[in-house]
């Protein structure tokens, strides 16, 4: 009786922490909806609601790779790109075949996740054999390759099906009524705007369920054991490649879902350095590090705050990115410098000791 009570309590502690995380999301959703309905939210802020969901999902999924698997990925935006384009291609092709937006978007999400997962496997197999900095630079390389390749892809549709070319729209050889869907560097126009804040929040909750449940399961322990000590993990019979690939692929699939939200939130989708290049991947990495590596709730909060921050600082427009950069540097040094951490501990203990003596 004693033993099983102890076990139940332990499960509850983890469960409690997770419930708090879900609670924060649901509470935030309710509060925002109330504010929107009361007309208290500006158009600018309304436009940020879906992006916040997108970057939250990106941050949580990247933390799965960086914090739980323990590998540095600088190409996460590449998976978002795959998800965005594959789902947009699907949605536009199926506009007539599946007129119901809800059902079509649901499938678009599955398609985006699927192709991003596929990309995750294709990238993961060679990449995960490398170590540390080499792995990081190769993930960056893959991210750039994905972005560049999509810029030379032309896909069109006519009565006889889909046509594909890497030269230009003419080479698609389509009948007159055919439409070009992916127009090389001009990307995709006309994706139905199916993304909503509600759907975004639901996807965040699903992402959380997947990641948190994965972490607190047998596979999660295996993944973390690979992170903490690869050699020891091997010595107790854990298949390193399988679990590295598992974490990487799930992470990529979730980034793909974020990509679907992204592509269905704009009328014109292009792959540029700014939205799918290494700059974007790095931005997400900053969210993850500031929120705490391995801290899923932290990534969520950091993603929200850091997406809002540049907008909130709009008043100081010319200086805002400068301030952002300075805040980043100061926060990093303050939180991670071993000397400052020691100083803080000693100061804290000194105060504690004095309070106890008083």
């Amino acid at each position: 009786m004693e033993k099983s009570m102890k076990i139940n309590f332990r499960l509850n502690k983890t469960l409690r922490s997770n419930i708090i995380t879900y609670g924060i999301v649901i509470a935030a959703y309710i509060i925002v909806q109330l504010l929107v309905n009361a007309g208290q939210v500006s158009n600018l802020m309304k436009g940020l609601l879906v992006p916040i969901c997108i970057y939250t999902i990106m941050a949580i999924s990247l933390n799965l790779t960086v914090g739980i698997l323990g590998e540095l990925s600088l190409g996460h935006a590449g998976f978002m790109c795959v998800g965005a384009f594959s789902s947009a291609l699907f949605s536009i092709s199926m506009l007539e075949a599946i007129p119901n937006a809800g059902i079509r978007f649901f499938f678009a999400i599955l398609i985006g996740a699927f192709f991003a997962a596929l990309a995750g496997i294709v990238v993961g197999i060679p990449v995960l054999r490398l170590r540390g900095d080499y792995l990081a630079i190769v993930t960056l390389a893959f991210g750039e390759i994905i972005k560049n390749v999509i810029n030379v892809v032309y896909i069109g549709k006519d009565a006889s099906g889909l046509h594909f070319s890497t030269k230009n729209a003419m080479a698609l050889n389509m009948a007159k009524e055919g439409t070009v869907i992916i127009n090389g560097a001009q990307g995709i126009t006309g994706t139905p705007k199916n993304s909503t804040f509600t759907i975004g929040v639901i996807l965040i909750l699903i992402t959380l369920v997947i990641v948190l449940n994965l972490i607190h399961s047998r596979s999660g322990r295996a993944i973390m054991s690979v992170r903490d000590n690869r050699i020891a993990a091997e010595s107790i019979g854990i298949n390193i490649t399988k679990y590295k690939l598992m974490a990487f692929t799930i992470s990529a699939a979730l980034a793909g879902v974020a990509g679907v939200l992204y592509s269905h939130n704009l009328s014109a989708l292009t792959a540029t350095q700014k939205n799918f290049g290494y700059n974007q991947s790095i931005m997400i990495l900053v969210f993850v590090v500031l929120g705490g590596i391995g801290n899923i709730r932290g990534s969520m909060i950091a993603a929200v705050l850091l997406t809002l921050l540049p907008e909130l600082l709009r008043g100081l427009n010319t200086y805002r990115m400068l301030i952002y950069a300075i805040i980043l540097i100061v926060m990093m040094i303050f939180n991670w410098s071993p000397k400052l951490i020691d100083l803080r501990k000693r100061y804290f203990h000194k105060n504690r000791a004095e309070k106890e003596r008083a």
Partner: protein
Amino acid sequence: MMSFISYFINGLSLGSVYAIIALGYTMVYGIAKMLNFAHGDVIMIGGYVVFTVVSTMGLGPVAGILLAVILCTVLGVVIEGVAYRPLRMASPLAVLITAIGVSYLLQNIALLVFGSNPKSFTSVVTVPSLKLLQGKLIISGETIVTIISCIIIMIGLTMFIKKTRAGQAMLAVSEDKGAAQLMGINVDGTIALTFAIGSALAAVAGALLCSAYPTLTPYTGSMPGIKAFVAAVFGGIGSIPGAFIGGLLLGVIENLSKAYISSQLSDAIVFGVLIVVLLVKPTGILGKKINEKV
């Protein structure tokens, strides 16, 4: 055939710039064991300094380069001391993110001071172009100067490391920081010197890069910085000859791809080659195999 040689030589020129930048990257990585993500942006600052001195102040290119080297050296040492040194004992990821912050900082300072409009850069090279084979092959002055500068820097750096005490100290710190300190080597000073040299090289690279590709924006240094880092990894990170070879190879591959395959895909091809090389030789062309002790 002529056009191939021409593309190839231009590729060598581009590669030389990458090599100079990569040398800085690889030195800092090998000795301070960190990825200085802001390196590309120091190049950009170097470019702007030369631009200001030459175009705005009207002084000669020599003054421009000199001032750029001095300023960038100081900048590099200051950045190391203020932003990186406090995190030297922390996780490598922490320093990487801080370096990213420094990169943003430099880009935004340049943005504030110079604006986002591309500046037209006057080449610092006054050497005339070389006309070979009855005018069928033209090698620009910039190309000649860049390639020669790169060779001189490579030789100079290798001699410095082999023949001077400071250079040997750098080698020691790159092998084992703790042991070097116990041997009485001033680790802080050595690392500062590494950043100084790397940043000076960045200034030179900036001047040469902008001479060959004469538009300058606050984001000019970013992609070359990444490519140079790729080159350093390609050649074996921490290896000076590796950075040299990696840089040159990268420049040639990029230029040939632009010429013969597609200018849009040239980046993808460069990155693709990197991936293939690392799959075959995971520590880069000249990299050392690191065996983990069990």
